């Protein structure tokens, strides 16, 4: 997407892929002009940043629940059963809780082998925030973050590590980034949303989640959209943010950055779906417009 921007404006964006921690560190040390993250900055990080920071939602990402049950298609799960699997209280596929959700499937006795991401990741952040939102047990026992202490299961490194482990273990369950599952044709479960509907992880499902959450969204853009209301909302979705200082100290570069951010939040959205990310719904694009107007150039309004 930044390539398309280069062609239109001649301004080159040098984008490097590092973890959120490193990205935020670089922003704090001002070696970069802006960063992107799947996680909201903690109060500690914002304090370290030294100046006010803006979180601008630019795309939507989701965690898909991959599973390996030969011959069983479209397994349906809800928050309680996923939390149970990862807490170790649901141990086999024929557990009454899972059977009740899938009356028309013939589920085997196979033990469930949960697989999680061992490296800190935005996907883990969204997944654990979802579980904390739907399960009080999860919230008190484990909590949410980019890395958490999972009570059971084995850790795979990266999406490919989790997917590899799931594909080789009959009965395994793992969460992977939606884009990765989609591009590799991994079979994933339908997840029950707040409205009680079972939805597959799709791009429209994620955009619907953002639209459903938009009504109650805080004005600063720092919102989790897990378990969002709306019939079509996929519940394990979250924003990916551009993170930048609110005051851009170099006016000329600042102007270029505001243009880039505006493009990203509006026209650039057309590229999202090709990359298996979900575009922002209009309500969130409007919010981004307001957020962008609040940016200042060397202390002066634009």
């Amino acid at each position, binding site marked *: 997407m930044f390539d398309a921007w280069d062609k239109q404006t001649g301004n080159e964006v040098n984008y490097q892929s*590092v*973890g*959120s*921690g*490193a990205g*935020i560190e670089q922003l704090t040390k001002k070696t970069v002009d802006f960063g992107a993250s799947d*996680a909201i900055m*903690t109060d*500690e*990080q914002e304090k*370290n940043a030294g100046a006010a920071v803006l979180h601008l939602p630019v795309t939507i990402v989701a965690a898909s629940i991959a599973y390996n049950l030969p011959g069983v298609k479209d397994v349906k799960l809800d928050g309680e059963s996923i939390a149970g699997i990862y807490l170790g209280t649901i141990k086999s596929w024929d557990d009454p809780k899972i059977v009740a959700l899938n009356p028309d499937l013939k589920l085997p006795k196979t*033990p469930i*082998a949960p697989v999680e991401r*061992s*490296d*800190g*990741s*935005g996907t883990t952040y969204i997944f654990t925030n979802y579980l904390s939102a739907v399960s009080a047990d999860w919230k008190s026992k*484990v*909590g*949410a*973050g*980019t*890395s*958490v*202490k*999972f009570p059971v*299961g*084995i*850790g*795979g*490194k990266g999406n490919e*590590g989790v997917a*590899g*482990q799931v594909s*080789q*273990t009959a009965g395994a369950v793992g969460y992977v980034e939606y884009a990765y599952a989609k591009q590799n044709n991994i079979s994933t479960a339908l997840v029950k949303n707040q409205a009680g509907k079972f939805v597959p992880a799709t791009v429209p499902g994620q955009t619907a989640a953002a639209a459903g959450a938009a009504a109650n969204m805080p004005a600063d853009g720092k919102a989790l959209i897990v378990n969002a209301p709306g019939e079509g909302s996929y519940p394990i979705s979250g924003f990916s943010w551009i993170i930048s200082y609110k005051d851009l100290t170099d006016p000329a570069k600042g102007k270029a950055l505001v243009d880039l951010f505006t493009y990203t939040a509006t026209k650039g959205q057309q590229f999202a779906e090709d990359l298996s990310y979900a575009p922002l719904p209009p309500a969130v694009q409007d919010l981004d417009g307001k957020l962008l107007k609040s940016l200042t150039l060397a202390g002066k309004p634009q």
Partner: protein
Amino acid sequence: MALALSPVPRKLRRPILGAAGLPDAAFRAVVLCFGALAVLALIGLIVAAMVEESSLSLSTFGPSFLAQNVWDPVKREFGTLPFIYGTVVSSLIALLIATPVSLGVAIFIVEMAPPWLGNAISVVVELLAAIPSVLLGLWGIFVMVPYLQRTVEPWFIERFPDVPLFEGPPYGVGLLAGGLILAIMIVPTIVAISRDVMLTVPISQREAMFALGATNWEATSWAVLPYARSGLLGAVMLGLGRALGETMAVTMVIGNRPDISASLFHPAYTMASVIANEFTEATFDLYVSALVEVGLALFLVTVLMNAVARLLVWSTAGSSQRVGAI
């Protein structure tokens, strides 16, 4: 290889022609700079930087950091014991498997194979060292782990139902998988060095044995191996060093669970892996600091293991010195 060469006898180190000339003094200064200052200063700087970066974690947890069994970023509790356990045990498994194999390969190359075959094997073994560890890890995930999970581990679990070493469900990934991958990675190191060490054993040693009517096996085990012993230990220790610090391939197959379990089939976690896995997404100061302290602990473990190895070399060198080997 330098490891095999005996140090220059002390009396030869003194200048032969009275006082040292200017070139000699300059040479000494340069060598001192490289040897003592550069290496020591580099290690000193690294340790100092790590201590500084981990000061928050050091002051928060104190020495209990090394003994704590919990690693929970959400509750901000950090302890490194499971990682130390995983690192040490997976490396020892690797050594246990790799040492006999590598020594066998080296003995075959030096003592038995015709030169063309020996050279061919050497090249292949060195090629093994050139495989990037991430590729070995992928091979581990897609070939080795499924084989362990479906064939090897069930076999052991069925036959030894009450042995804690072989307990638990066959995940495939785990301590055993980590140790096996490490073994594959350190074989080339050990083979290459022990081959060179054995090549330095004077041919007269073997000839003397053969003259006494010794078989090939007797000549190797009585003349060559004892002569090369300290160099061979050095080779094994270099392999151990590599195993302790290896990150990527192990992370991909060890299962990444900070647990301490007697079973070889249980997932574990190593110090290098947790740093590689969590450093990029460590979201608060104490977390980063704790990860740096894990690095410091890894450094400490490496130094300790090396010290033990040194002691081992010295204690065995004592006996071989009497035969005039060193």
